């Protein structure tokens, strides 16, 4: 059944690797209206199609790879596609998002989503072409790294592949597509558990458009605003995401020595400025991206993808390393092995502290790096202590101790920001459905440290409501098939003309801090109270409307994000991941970063009850029946 909405291909694939059965299935237009696509819709599908309580590495577990309506639309930053499953690392909802050509090619084959279940009795890959799919033998690919695997496959196809880490079911193995990654939550381990080495897609179909002329104009305007924006048009292209190193370090947010401290004396050596001066060959971007934040650096005589900010922090300051050349090398190694650099970096930092305290036998030591490269291989191949590290920090703490300084939430290792220097981010980390992810958290850091006008990073004023707003809009943007970097436009170009240290900024900061009671009520306006488009700040709604023909005004868009966030919460509750997991490690919640300054810890206990209330959840953190009814969340949960 095709969709009445353009922008979608209207068809979906289901592949059972146990039986070899390949079928097509429908998604209703009502679900498209409610969830848009991507991670929100994928979680709805998991709720409807996957049994509760299954082992995420069992054959019956599902891996969903899907797109949003914007994927492949030629709108800015719309090569994004999503993967979702019950995470083998956390037991909670696992989602990951990636740029590259796979999502576009999947749609060109006529499919919005592919659902993979079962387990092949030998290594296989899935080959998708126009309107059909085949399961093929992957004996010649098994054992290869992610680059060798992609090189051995169809050069013109979009691909997702795993490396040795996925094959050996490292709990935070990622999936690589070109040089990009479905990084978090162990999606690569799920592919490995199914003996699925890769999926490739190559199609010729066209993505239908409702209003071609209107879409073209909206895209032109959006592209112009991104190119003229101080962050997306200047800072990110010039310095990449590592542009933040110095700022984050000066702000005491840069994790240092397994998050013991928030400042690294040698951060300058691993900054975006140094990367640009010493290592940058050129910058690169995903398809249809005018920002081009990616870095190309030289490693071993070859031009390869450079590290992102999170990798720089977790393989730099967090293990007391100021050698950017080593970070480039390890980043490349992990990409080839197919391993999430955030979880891997955190796990190595944690192992260093465990070793220092005599709780773990390993060669890993802060400030000494001879053992790191070998350990990354040992993790991927599950050799020696690497076999323990392959399970992640939470499992290691259960075995060796140190849970109070295992830096994870819900089992997912924390991104490279110490929330004691931005307490709203701490609330986001604690409540993010997939765990300690800065993006699912709502990235309050932007409002607290990066934006031209900041909220007081140590105050809790208005933080719950602002965190919820950010979490919801990130959910909606991601579900659309769009890169989250486009959300920088929310702080539009004219705001950068306000002096961050001037009187006007001070007044706005005070108003923001006092805005909590008003912000708390904004959710009640959705969807009908915001029947507008705001193309300068949130251009997605106009572009989705022109592309699909759907009535996607701002209120509907924000509510779709809220709905997505809530259905992820419902998935977690169904899997036993409840409010008890809305916590931070003791190191961040109970230890002050600066013992002389009591404000330098995350006062989660003061924010969380209010957060639940504004979300429309009860005191146990469960969405109320009224909230679910308002959000029209219904599932045929099995």
């Amino acid at each position, binding site marked *: 059944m095709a969709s009445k909405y353009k922008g979608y291909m209207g068809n979906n694939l289901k592949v059972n690797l146990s039986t070899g059965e390949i079928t097509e299935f429908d998604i209703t237009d009502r679900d498209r209206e409610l969830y848009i696509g991507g991670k929100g819709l994928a979680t709805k599908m998991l709720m409807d199609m996957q049994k509760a309580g299954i082992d995420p590495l069992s054959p019956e577990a599902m891996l969903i790879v899907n797109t949003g309506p914007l994927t492949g639309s030629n709108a800015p930053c719309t090569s994004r596609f999503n993967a979702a499953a019950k995470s083998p690392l956390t037991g909670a909802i696992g989602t990951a998002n990636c740029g590259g050509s796979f999502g576009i090619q999947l749609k060109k084959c006529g499919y919005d989503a592919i659902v993979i279940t079962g387990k092949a009795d030998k290594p296989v890959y899935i080959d998708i072409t126009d309107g059909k799919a085949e399961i093929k033998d992957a004996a010649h690919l098994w054992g290869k790294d992610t680059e060798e695997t992609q090189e051995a496959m169809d050069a013109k196809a979009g691909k997702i592949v795993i490396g040795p880490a996925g094959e050996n079911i490292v709990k935070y193995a990622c999936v690589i597509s070109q040089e990009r990654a479905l990084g978090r939550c162990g999606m690569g381990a799920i592919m490995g558990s199914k003996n699925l080495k890769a999926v490739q897609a190559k199609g010729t179909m066209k993505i239908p458009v409702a209003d071609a002329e209107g879409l073209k104009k909206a895209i032109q305007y959006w592209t112009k605003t991104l190119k003229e924006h101080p962050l997306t048009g200047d800072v*990110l292209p010039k310095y990449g*995401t*590592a542009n*933040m190193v110095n700022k984050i370090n000066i702000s005491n947010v840069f994790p240092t020595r397994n998050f013991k401290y928030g400042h690294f004396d040698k951060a300058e050596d691993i900054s975006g400025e140094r990367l640009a001066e010493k290592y940058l060959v050129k910058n690169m971007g995903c398809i249809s991206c005018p920002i081009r934040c990616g870095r190309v650096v030289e490693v071993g005589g070859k031009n390869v993808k450079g590290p992102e900010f999170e990798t720089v922090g977790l393989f730099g300051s967090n293990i007391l390393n100021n050698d950017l050349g080593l970070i480039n090398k390890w980043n490349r190694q992990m990409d080839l092995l197919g391993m999430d650099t955030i979880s891997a970096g955190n796990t190595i930092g944690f192992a260093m502290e465990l070793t220092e305290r005599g709780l773990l036998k390993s060669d890993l030591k802060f400030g000494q790096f001879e053992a790191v490269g070998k350990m990354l291989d040992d993790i991927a191949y599950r050799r020696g202590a690497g076999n323990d590290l392959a399970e992640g920090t939470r499992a290691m703490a259960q075995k060796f101790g140190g849970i109070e300084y295992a830096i994870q939430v819900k089992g997912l290792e924390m991104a490279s920001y110490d929330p004691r220097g931005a307490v709203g981010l701490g609330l986001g980390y604690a409540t993010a459905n997939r765990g300690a992810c800065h993006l699912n958290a709502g990235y309050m850091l*932007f409002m607290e440290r*990066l934006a031209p006008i900041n909220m*007081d990073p140590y105050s809790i004023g208005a933080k719950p409501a602002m965190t919820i707003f950010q979490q919801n809009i990130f959910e909606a943007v991601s579900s659309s098939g769009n890169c989250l970097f486009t959300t920088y436009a929310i702080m539009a170009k004219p705001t950068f*003309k306000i002096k961050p240290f001037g009187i006007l900024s001070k007044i706005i900061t005070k108003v923001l801090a006092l805005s909590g009671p008003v912000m708390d009520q904004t959710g009640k306006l959705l969807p009908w109270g915001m029947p507008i488009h705001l193309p300068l700040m949130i251009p997605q709604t106009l572009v989705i409307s022109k592309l699909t023909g759907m009535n996607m005004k701002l209120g509907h868009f924000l509510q779709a994000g809220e709905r997505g966030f809530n259905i992820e919460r419902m998935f977690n509750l169904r899997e036993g991941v409840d409010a008890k997991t809305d916590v931070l490690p003791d190191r961040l919640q109970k230890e002050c970063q600066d013992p002389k300054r009591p404000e330098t810890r995350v006062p989660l206990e003061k924010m969380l009850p209010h957060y639940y209330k504004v979300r429309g959840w009860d005191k146990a953190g469960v969405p109320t029946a009224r909230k679910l009814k308002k959000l029209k969340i219904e599932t045929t949960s099995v």
Partner: protein
Amino acid sequence: MNVNEPLVKVKFYAGLRAKAGEEKIECHAAKVKDVLHILRDKYGPDFNKALNSCHIYLNHDSIAFLHGPNTKLKEGDVLHILPPTGGG
């Protein structure tokens, strides 16, 4: 510049380094606003325009949450001038 006032270090980041032609300077100043005057005089209008969109941190704290340009300085303080940043 009054040498009786505290000697402070001023550090520039990202694109501001190219505009200044250097990564850091030292100067004597009693308050942040005195440093801003020194920088405007030293580097000219292009630098000054960029300066207006920068965050200024005194050691590890944004002056926006201290006393803004009237924040007092003491010997050995480091003033960080940071152009807009973003990533994630």
